[in-house]
């Protein structure tokens, strides 16, 4: 057991070290950090709950539905971004046939995104009053603007000259 514990603590230390490394500042092209995603999710919950004045009873039904569909949409978006990256970086190397396939799938992604939104909308109609549902879409847009504002504020603080 003692030997096992020693091994465990070594593994634990390594994991903690990797955690610290994972949280180090990264470039723009890196994926979202785990803690960053958590923060954004928490901000969004607070923002939308406040804007829609969701009652606890409404929130209890609303968030599971909303999260489920947002996750599907996020995944679609990630796939679309991967394809766009491929086109951006390898357009010269890809064949016409491959490019045609990628262009088709871009439209397919957009159609699917709308389909998911429509499906979510139908469900939310049953649990939210029309006023709150209309406010939801406005709140989503405003939340993005809020994120952009936060980003630009942070950028202005850390890089006041605006230079690279």
């Amino acid at each position, binding site marked *: *057991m003692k030997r096992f514990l020693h091994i465990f603590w070594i593994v634990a230390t390594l994991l903690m070290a990797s955690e610290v490394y994972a949280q180090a500042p990264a470039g723009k092209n890196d994926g979202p950090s785990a803690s960053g995603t958590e923060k954004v999710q928490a901000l969004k919950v607070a923002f939308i709950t406040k804007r829609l004045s969701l009652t606890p009873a409404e929130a209890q039904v609303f968030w599971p539905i909303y999260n489920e569909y947002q996750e599907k949409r996020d995944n679609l978006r990630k796939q679309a971004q991967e394809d766009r990256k491929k086109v951006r970086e390898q357009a010269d190397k890809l064949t016409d046939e491959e490019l045609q396939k990628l262009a088709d799938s871009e439209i397919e992604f957009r159609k699917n995104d709308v389909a998911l939104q429509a499906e979510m909308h139908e469900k939310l109609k049953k649990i939210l009053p029309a006023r709150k549902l209309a406010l939801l879409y406005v709140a989503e*847009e405003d939340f993005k603007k809020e994120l952009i504002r936060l980003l630009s504020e942070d950028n202005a603080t850390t890089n006041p000259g605006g230079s690279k």
Partner: protein
Amino acid sequence: MTISYSFRLIGVLALSIGFLPQAFGKTDSLAYSSASHVNALLRERSREAKHYIRPTLWISNFGTATQALTSRNTVAAQNITNRLGNYRFAQTNLGFYAPIYTQAKFKGNDTTHLNTFHLLVTANLLNDKPQFSALTEQHILYKAGIGMRAIWAFGSEHVILYDASPFVTGDRYNKATTRRFLFASTLVWNCTPRSVPGFSFRLGITRTFLLGNRFSLPMVGFRIGRLDGKFYFSAQFPRNAVLVYQPNPKISVTAFTRVYGGFYNLSNSDSLYFGTDSVIQFGRTGLANGLRLDVRASKNFSFFLSGGMAANNKIWLYSSSFNQGTNRPLRHFYDAKTVSTPFIHVGVSFRFGKAKNSAGNTLMYDVFDLNNTIDPGDNNDGPGNGEIRRSGKNDAKKIQYRDVSDLIEETDLY
């Protein structure tokens, strides 16, 4: 039919209910909905998280200070007390759970309830060292088990958990003769009424060895306050009562009273029992009262430090042959207790992999809480609610471009 068989039957039924999702009511699954081509595409290409619960591994150490044993004033009891000497114990617990199957379906009359079913595999390894100062060779007791649990969250208000924790216990003093299979299990219903915000209650039944003997007990509990709120109070009989203060997403401070204990086969090599038994049973229990500081260092790693006074420390010795052929709580031939003693308890938890987004989903928070409170292995020593993140004032600070790049489109900048 014995109670343990009843539990097993209930477990099978609970699993069957989970695997028959379309048997009742209107269903509208994300996986099998009309937009099946979208889902097929997602399954085919994405690395979409499958589960809400992340695989979690935790290890903790619990130890008390040495105290004199006090037993009844009979010659036989005093004789054993003198042969045992002073008493303390230390415990190392390793626990693990991982989801193996998760199902999410929209159900209900208007298909707006996201019902989820979670099947998890659990594992537990525990070393329990009761240390008696007068014994020349100490008994090191162990417990190892692999179990299953099913959690069903439905109707936006209800959660049912069934945990089956079979385990093998024994005494390293004499492994071959002391090995024994035991079966702990718990069935709990948790209700979070939508009309009463920040409140939940639980009812259930548990087959437990936590109180130093085999018991089938009712489980009754309630919580006041949100699990992701600044304060909440939760009392869960027969496990714990906690008052939790979460000033920010990283830290929580808990004032608690918690039952600890166990039930093991013990080698009778030191002839603690005067009969012919080569193996006897040892039970211990107590109530740890103290403060606990949980630090959620990151989404994947958390640790806790806890200390206080362990009260009501009791031990029992039971004769195997005397209690043969009964499924009731055992009758002891020796019991003793110590005065309250300081204890220290430290632990770390690791969570791995990706999980589906459950931010703001209070029913899923109850799933997490139930899953962590009813720990695998019946030790009342879970990993803490690391998945439930309280929102903080500083969340808006230090957001990086990479965290939001997926969410912002070109048109948002106009």
